[in-house]
């Protein structure tokens, strides 16, 4: 076992932090990286807060994966349209979409709802260069896990439509994964989007 000081792979400055996180953020140059069998610099976006957002602000990390879905065969009882194929151009059985997967620890039902909501209705947000003084939730989901979760989100979109899903033959290709920090505010009802 060897303990090393984490340094930014881009500018070489040591990274200081008071909270444990699997993603390391360099406050000097803004680079974020992970160490999972090797150093990997992450492609990151930071969303800007709505000007009217209250003060209890926090950034929540999401994996946003640009993906191609090909639906080969769908069978369901009780009819209903296929949600995914309805997105594709008429007559097509494939299309591209951004799949969103929460990357921080959260209650399981909330996790599913956020993944579904953001994938079906991509959140509009402006970007900024840094976090400012706003804290961020630690990232606990690894990129590989997020890709598996993307698969779950695709099936959930098809299953949570009118009718009862009986069979789904599809392929999912994740082209890239980007870590997006979205602005939220803490309320008594939990975290609420603030972009």
């Amino acid at each position, binding site marked *: 076992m060897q303990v090393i000081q984490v340094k930014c792979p881009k500018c070489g400055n040591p990274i200081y*932090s008071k909270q444990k996180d699997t993603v390391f953020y360099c406050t000097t140059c803004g680079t974020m990286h992970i*160490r999972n069998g090797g150093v990997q610099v992450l492609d990151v976006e930071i969303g800007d807060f709505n000007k009217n957002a209250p003060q209890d602000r926090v950034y929540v990390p999401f994996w946003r994966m640009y993906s191609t879905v090909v639906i080969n065969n769908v069978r369901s009882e009780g009819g209903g349209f296929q949600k995914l194929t309805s997105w594709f151009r008429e007559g097509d059985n494939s299309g591209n979409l951004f799949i969103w997967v929460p990357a921080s620890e959260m209650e399981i039902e909330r996790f599913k709802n956020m993944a579904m909501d953001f994938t079906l209705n991509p959140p509009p947000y402006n970007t900024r260069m840094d976090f400012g003084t706003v804290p961020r939730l630690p990232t606990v989901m690894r990129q590989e896990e997020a890709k*598996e979760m993307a698969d779950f989100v695709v099936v959930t979109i098809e299953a949570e439509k009118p009718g009862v899903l009986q069979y789904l033959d599809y392929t999912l290709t994740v082209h890239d994964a980007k870590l997006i920090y979205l602005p939220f505010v803490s309320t008594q009802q939990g975290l609420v989007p603030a972009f």
Partner: protein
Amino acid sequence: MGIEVGLNCPACSGAIKVVEGETTVNCQYCGSMLFVEGDAGVTTISFKNMITRETAVISSASWWKKGFKARDLKRVGQVTECYPIYIPFWSTTTRVAGWICGYEERTHSDGKRTYTERIPKEELILRDYRFSEIACDPGDLGIRKMRNIDGETALTDFQTIPTFESTTSKDDAFAHAKESAMANARSDAHVPHITFENVHVFPESMSMVYYPIWVVRYTYRDRMYLNTVDGVTGSVLSGRAPGDPLFQSLAVTAGTSIGGLLGATGIIVASSSGEVAIGCFVVGLIIMVGTYLFFRGGSEITEGDFSDRGFKLGDLKNVASQLTQGRVGGNNWGDI
């Protein structure tokens, strides 16, 4: 709480504690983010032993009185040994996310004809499953899984009480955790005929939990028996105890009589009501099989995860469940 390894911060040389199994740590002196390279190891937790020898013996004596054990066990049984040991368990939580789709068949009868209804089902599985399995050869202790996960952790007892060595691998435990989570997910989905399944299993980091167990050895009429007591809750976890010949005799007499009577009732009512007749036969058969099991294994009562078989009340439930599966799952006595 995990075992902490004392090291020095490579930036300021301040003393830091790295919890075994974790890969990041913050230096409390200079605030540097530190990363643990190499074998991340396994988080190790030990539960504090909360009971005394006297409590273990009292708990065992109370267990002797329960069930179909020898009626004079409480009076004749003599504790010869009672000592604590720590047993290692692999422990993890697996998150399961996926869908299981298919259908369930229900057969209905209106007296004249039967028809089968197919009910399509799609079930979302999104939950965490806890998994544990013993990490050593438990011998004849009858313990395979950790029953309790709540308790105070400590390191002091861990060094003073004898400990079983871990003999199984973390990779095997991970594989078993995944298999167990998949099996649990399928069971919870209640989809008898699966046409489509897409389930992902995400195990969290594996922990090694050392759990205190009291081993109580005792004699009954020159024969040796053993039971174990949970060192945290004080309840009996497993054990062997002598059965009672009187209970066996009574069971055979009553079981064969009632089973026979139900069978005869079935024959009598067969011409007027087929369903009642089949019901009588099935219940009679359950009672007869249960009687046989009790007679065969009733000379020794076992509780816990033993590979050989003494008599367990769970046996009766299993027989009843298997015999009535057609009724419960598909309302179809004809399959029995």
